[in-house]
């Protein structure tokens, strides 16, 4: 199977279906030994009600596609999936799905960490928090997220 078919990237308002995405990844190849998934969801606390996710249509998809391609090569993946939701999401709802399928567990797990670390700071998404009482605030970029992303720069 050509590698292009093994990459699945989407930006969408709708929820994703973890079972369906898992099935897509695990069925890619009989050489698959492991599938690693990460699902990010809206973390509650401090009166947070929701996040509203904004993105830059056109650029977002290109960045995600390039990121997926980089992971395919770097970790010798059989396939990978990146799905990012946009719009208003309440506490507990899922935001992002990252999946990697590989012959061996180590590369699948590393690729998943790489993809979510890079997605956090390298793709044009922004989050606005809404709190009980109605106040809103834009999420600030965190130095530790930048550090996690750039830790992948030197192999």
């Amino acid at each position: 199977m050509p590698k292009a078919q093994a990459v699945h990237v989407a930006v969408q308002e709708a929820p994703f279906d973890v079972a369906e995405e898992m099935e897509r990844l695990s069925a890619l190849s009989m050489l698959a030994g492991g599938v690693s998934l990460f699902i990010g969801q809206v973390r509650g606390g401090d009166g947070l009600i929701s996040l509203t996710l904004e993105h830059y249509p056109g650029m977002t998809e290109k960045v995600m596609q390039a990121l997926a391609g980089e992971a395919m090569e770097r970790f010798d993946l059989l396939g990978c999936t990146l799905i990012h939701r946009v719009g208003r999401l309440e506490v507990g709802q899922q935001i992002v799905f990252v999946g990697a399928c590989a012959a061996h567990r180590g590369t699948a797990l590393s690729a998943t960490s790489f993809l979510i670390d890079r997605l956090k700071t390298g793709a044009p998404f922004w989050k606005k928090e809404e709190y009980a009482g109605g106040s809103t605030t834009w999420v600030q970029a965190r130095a530790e997220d930048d550090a996690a992303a750039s830790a992948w720069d030197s192999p």
Partner: protein
Amino acid sequence: MVDVKGSAKTGMTVTVLYFAALRERIGRETQELAIPPEGLVVSALLARLGAADARAASALAEEPRLRVAVNHALCTMDDLVRPGDEVAVFPPMTGG
């Protein structure tokens, strides 16, 4: 160096897009900005945006870590912007 295709389509302008907190502070999503036919580096383009609009000037000055993308690719303050380009200006990204 003139980008003939770009200038023909846009009349020596670039489309500027703002996102997230920057979009809210400036109070608009997009604007057209005239630039010289030979283009302009990103830092000079930002200065022109500020010169043309007081809200843009203060919003751009208040964001310590501005990010700029030209035609969907992140770039540095020294990269060249040419007529017809799409330039996006935004705060650090917070996805995932």
